[in-house]
């Protein structure tokens, strides 16, 4: 029959699902864009801390929008109110949408109650970046830390998020850890919910 193979036509343009679109974006295109972003910020600032802060702010905007979009796409949307709920949401869903795979691991910090860590062998954004020696401990993963902070903040879990290199025995390149430190009120609320 004619037309049977066509995609379903929606009467109302708003009934069309927010398509997942093409699942993949070219990595080289992203790498070029990201390197330009870093260079642009580098010219404007005098010190490393400021550069890290700017990358984080850029990531924050992305995180806020990603949260809205993902929560809308997911069927049976439920608002996350538990700490572990939102952390596993970031660790699997957000990572899968942004980087095409789940994060390597999610751990709870041993020293402090309010610290959690998401680790990755090598962050996608850092794949084509090598930090010069005189920049010390700077990590372009600050962009990803900003994304995580954006998602947490807008979901109601204020936190301080930073990215660190953690040397691993037996491997030449250190692995990257995103350290999440939750605000006091989040822990109190969590304790109250039992």
């Amino acid at each position, binding site marked *: 029959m004619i037309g049977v193979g066509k995609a379903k036509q929606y009467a109302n343009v*708003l009934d069309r699902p927010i398509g997942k679109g093409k699942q993949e974006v070219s990595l080289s295109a992203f790498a070029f864009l990201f390197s330009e972003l870093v260079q642009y910020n580098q010219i404007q600032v005098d010190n490393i801390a400021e550069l890290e802060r700017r990358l984080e702010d850029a990531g924050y*905007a992305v995180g806020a929008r990603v949260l*809205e*979009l993902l*929560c809308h796409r997911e069927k049976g949307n*439920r608002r996350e*109110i538990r700490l572990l709920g939102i952390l596993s949401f970031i660790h699997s869903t957000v990572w899968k949408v942004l980087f095409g795979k789940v994060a390597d691991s999610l751990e709870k910090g041993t020293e402090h109650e309010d610290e959690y860590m998401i680790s990755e062998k090598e962050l996608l954004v850092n794949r084509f970046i090598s930090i010069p020696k005189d920049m010390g401990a700077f990590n372009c993963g600050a962009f990803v830390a900003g994304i995580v902070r954006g998602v947490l903040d807008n979901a*109601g879990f204020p936190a301080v998020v930073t990215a660190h290199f953690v040397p691993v025995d037996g491997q030449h390149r250190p692995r990257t850890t995103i350290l999440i430190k939750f605000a006091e009120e989040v822990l109190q609320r969590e304790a109250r919910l039992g």
Partner: protein
Amino acid sequence: MIVCVAVVGHQNNPLYIQSFTKADDSLKLHHIVHCSLDVVDERVNNPKKSGLIINETFLGLLNPTENYKVYGYLTNTKVKFILVTTDLEVRDADARVFFGRFHTAYVNAVSNPFHIPGKKITSRKFAERVSTIVKSFGLSSSS
């Protein structure tokens, strides 16, 4: 007949408010929307008393006043959508569909890189989309 729709941010700041009647009673509509925010907060903070599941997005009929019915919807980021209508029989399913489409339009508006979170939504496209949704709501519920 939908009279008014509103988007309210997580600190109860208005992000978008639009009325669809010819009469000039926008102040009264603002007032109704504002009162219904209290009902939303009450539902969110006391789940046991209101008997609702704590994480549901669609909040249902909030507040039947005089000749208006007010429906609420809460998103993950504590942004609230309020719908004020004069229809006497609005089916639950219709309201849910309406809010689903409205949420889609809202996500599209917020994804705009020029949109500043926390400020009012000034996108013309969003306003057009909302008018379209409102018109189709009237048609489907009258059938």
